[in-house]
């Protein structure tokens, strides 16, 4: 009897491993393990056997049954996997077609980016960022910045004055010739905020003021009637010209690279005394004035230096206009102003100011 079980099991095993599909497998299950199968019959008839045979026959039959069930399951899984593989073959796609792009991010304007870079350098040095009006009183733009009416320094900045009939009623304004503190204009620099900020806050004061300014220039590659500046103001006890030099040296290195050097030259602004111009060592020629091929560097015109900003110690007359805690005899501090377009042009090699305001996407996309 045991021999018969072994031969049944061998026969079934061979058939299972040869079964071509799930239907054949089901047929084999019924044939070898079904209720009418011989193996089931043997198990059912065990009680009728001799007691001595019952043990060995039962064990053999149960073992055969378990083994065949495992084999059936394994074979079923193998057949399933093969079937899925066959189905997938029909689902092929052309993987060489272009992918669907996600919505690509746009771009911040390079002026926004540059303005933020400058702001962040000074925030890191403990400055707050302030903003001011672009339509401004002559008083703040010129008079309080030590440009008396008729002063020739006003000629340095040809201004857009506002048609007084287009201002809200009650605004202090009156067109004068020469223009004076009663006039209203588009600010020619961000410097008016020096006075406004000091009016609003006692020293010490550390601020930078980014913003748009206007000068009456016709549009060409190096002149625009509208551009952007960042003003800086640091006023407090003992703040000196060497502090100005150190602060702007730090800023130049942060903006243009740690290997940059700066130098100060005498300059003139009515609202600073002494006044200085700050140059940074040229990044195209590393300050040598000559390019690697020996030619004169066109960026710095062979001088090795590039002008980046104007600065100086706040003129006592400006403190006089602010009044209050700002005693002209004892208060000191420095101020500076830099052009955002100029910094961006130098950093990115942008050749023409007009590109900033043309808003050509092919330009905008170059700066993310």
């Amino acid at each position, binding site marked *: 009897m045991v021999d018969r079980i072994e031969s049944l099991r061998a026969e079934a095993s061979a058939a299972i491993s040869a079964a071509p599909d799930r239907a054949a497998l089901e047929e084999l299950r019924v044939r070898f393990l079904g209720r009418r199968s011989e193996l089931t019959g043997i198990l059912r008839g065990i009680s009728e056997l001799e007691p001595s045979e019952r043990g060995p026959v039962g064990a053999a039959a149960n073992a055969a049954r378990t083994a065949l069930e495992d084999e059936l399951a394994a074979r079923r899984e193998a057949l399933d996997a093969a079937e899925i593989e066959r189905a997938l073959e029909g689902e092929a796609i052309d993987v060489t*077609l*272009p992918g669907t*792009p996600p*919505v690509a*991010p*746009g771009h*911040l*304007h390079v002026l*926004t980016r540059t303005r933020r870079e400058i702001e962040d350098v*000074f925030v890191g040095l403990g400055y*707050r960022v302030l*903003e*001011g*009006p*672009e*339509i*401004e*009183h002559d008083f703040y733009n010129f008079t309080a910045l030590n440009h*008396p009416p*008729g*002063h*020739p320094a006003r000629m*340095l900045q040809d201004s*857009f*004055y*506002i*048609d007084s009939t287009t*201002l*809200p009623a*009650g*605004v202090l304004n009156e067109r004068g010739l*020469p223009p004076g503190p009663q006039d209203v204009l588009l600010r020619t620099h961000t410097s008016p*905020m020096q*006075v406004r*900020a000091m009016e*609003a806050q006692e020293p*010490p004061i550390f601020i930078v003021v980014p913003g748009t300014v206007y000068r009456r220039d016709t549009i060409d590659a190096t002149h625009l009637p*509208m551009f952007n500046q960042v003003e800086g103001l640091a006023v407090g006890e*003992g*703040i000196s*010209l060497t*502090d100005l*030099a*150190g*602060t702007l040296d730090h800023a130049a290195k942060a903006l243009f690279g740690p290997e940059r050097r700066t130098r*100060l*030259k*005498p*300059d*003139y602004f009515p609202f600073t*005394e*002494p006044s*200085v111009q700050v140059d940074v060592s040229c990044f195209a020629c590393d300050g040598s004035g000559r390019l690697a091929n020996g030619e004169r560097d066109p960026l710095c015109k062979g001088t090795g230096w590039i002008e980046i900003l104007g600065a100086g110690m706040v003129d006592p007359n400006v403190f006089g206009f602010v009044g209050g805690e700002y005693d002209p005899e004892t208060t*000191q501090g420095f101020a500076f102003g830099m052009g955002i377009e100029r910094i961006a042009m130098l950093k990115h090699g942008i050749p023409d100011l007009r590109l900033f*305001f043309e*808003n*050509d*996407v092919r330009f*905008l*996309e170059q700066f993310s």
Partner: protein
Amino acid sequence: MRVPFGWLTEYCDPGLAPEELAELLSMRAVEVERVSRVGVPSTDGFEVGRVVSAEQHPNADRLRVCEVETSEGTRTIVCGAPNVAAGQAVAVALPGARMPDGQKLKRAKLRGVESNGMILSERELELGDDHAGIMVLDTDAAPGTPLADVLPITDSVLELDLNPNRVDCMGVYGVAREVHAITGAPLAPAPWELDAEPEGGGSVQDLASVTVEVPELCPRFTARAFTEITLGPSPTWLRARLLAAGMRPIFNAVDITNYVMLITAQPLHAFDLDRVPGGELIIRTAREGETMTTLDGIERTLDAETVLVCDRDGPAGIAGIMGGQRSEVSDATTSVLLEVANWDGVNVLRTSSLLGLRSDASSRNEKQLHPELTIRAQRLASRLFAELCGATVVPGTVDAAAEIPAPHRISLHGARLDSLLGVPIERAEASAGLGRLGFEVAEAGERDLEVTVPVERHYDVTREVDVIEEVGRLHGLDRLPRTLPAHPDRVGGLSREQLVRRRVEDVIRDLGFDQIVSWAFVDAGLADRLRLLGDDERRVAVATHNPISEEHARMRTTLLGGLLDAARHNLARDVARVALFESGPVYLRESAGDEGGPLTGRFAGRMPPPARERHRLAGLLVGGLAPPTWRGSAPAGDAAGFYSLKGALETLAAQLGVALALSPGAEPFLHPGRAASLAIDGRGAGWIGELHPLVSREWDLPGASAFELDLAPLSDAFGGGEERYRDLTSHPSVLQDLAVTVGEEVPAERVREAVAHGGGELLVDARIFDVYRGEQVGPGRKSLALRLEFRAADRTLTDAEVGEARERIRRELAEIGGSLRE
């Protein structure tokens, strides 16, 4: 200001090359913009020659064949000048010499005769205008002497970029004083130190008189007279200096006035004394509308603040700017009345701006000269009139002077000097430097100085801080150490509004938009092209009085114009995606309020700003945000990108934690059926919509959508950083879908609101995920599918609770004509 190097170093020569001196001046005194060159590039090959013979050319009427003695013996030179003659000393260029234009002179055969060089005219050497004949030299120099020894045939010119405070450097001697101060090289005595010797009896008062009616505008008026003048060309050296300085030589009497101005910075004006009736001059202001013809032949109409130099017959010159034609010096002049006057700079600048008339004189007078300079100029000019014109200097000076201002005496405190500059400066160093600049210096106390300001710096150096600037720059600004302010208590940072603005710009950028920056000024026609109606407040703009053109005359009241221009620009260039935004102010004719911060136009300072500047964010989208691919383009029904744009705006609001509400609205530039108003916390905040086809057509755009959003309400509502934790895990929520049929005219938001209202507080979310129109819902109706989320914070909801909520929703929907599709 052009400063010829040879002229400058005659007064102070530190032995430096022009470029080295230029660099030093830039670092310590005044900016030298560039160093240029006048005359020949090299003095090699230029010699003095002596004409031995000059014979008629055998084959040409107008040419002479000359034998000229030079360093290498006698050579043949063919010359076309009519004035060449035997015995003359002449300027010769030998073959190989480089002419001012850089051309190398070659041997040449002229009508069969070989010419071994060239006899030069003034113009060929850039020493003057004269090209009628060759230059005949007034020299005993032997033939072969280098020409540069007898003529200034080459020089460098330092081109100064002067600031308005340094009018003293508009004179060559003033620049020489700077060279002296920064190098220590000796300074020659001032050229005006010696006065001319007057001749004969009588006095200038017999020939001329001056009445100054406006002493506040004419602090000093001086005049001298010169008679028996011999007019003629100035000597070569003088003409060369004028040319190098950028002025045209005319003849001696006029050249002298220019030359003296170029040395002293003080303008002068020569009248023909015989054309000034009675020699009588009156300084007065013009009558409104009075006219006169200036030297340049142009008739000028004047106003009542213009100051005139008049004679008995009327205006003879505009004070400090330009003389008149009527009494100008001509080739018939034999006597000169020389005016050297001091004027009010503000008035000169005003008049010259008004007339659009700038001159070498006005550019100096407008910067306020000191009255003392007038006498300096008179002295130097008198000597030159005697020397160069053979003039008789009439004794005396007409001098109408208001009180001459007393020199400034300033205390320079050592402590203040060190504190402002940040480095200790030796008193001896400060004292020596100031002394070289012409300051009188006396020591006071242990560390201080008492200084007296020289007249040429009187209006520039008036306070201690101005003296400190002088000491600082002479010390060398580039030598200062670098330090940082010692204020450890300062705290930097961005304001909340600034942080929100950055965030907004970043999010809209990340959503696919490119930032533009457009002109703040727009043309007056923009309002019409945007179809803004007569009473639309955006038609009311602040305008500039003097725009560069009508296209830039008005300040923008909406950001839309700039976006439309930029969209057109880019579409015309086939840019793949036109999704643009701008973040910037609009300018409104309103008083700035007391509320809010910079985003609403309220800024620091005692005086409020003259107008209202509101910061806005605006965007424009043409088509979709995703580029069209082979799988299809924009979602159906959204060719103009409205829902893409709205989606971007909703994402922006969500990123900032702000509830942005849309309701159907209208703007004249938007499609009437596809426009919405934006609100944040119940405050109007802007608009969104598809552009009106007429507006799109005006800018050559296909369908496009746009929005404009005030940033202040967004910033006020910004909840970043304030979120509180909510428990969403302990009690699961119940999700259900709902299909609602309503009339076509009912906005989806109205349906959502009804559902939300009916669901009560158990309904935590309801969002529309499908819209269906078709047979199953019938004509004039639509079906909206919503996903609802019910949840309670403290318990798991029962079916009964959700069922009750659904029933309430059903009732709410019935109110707006809606029914549930089960």
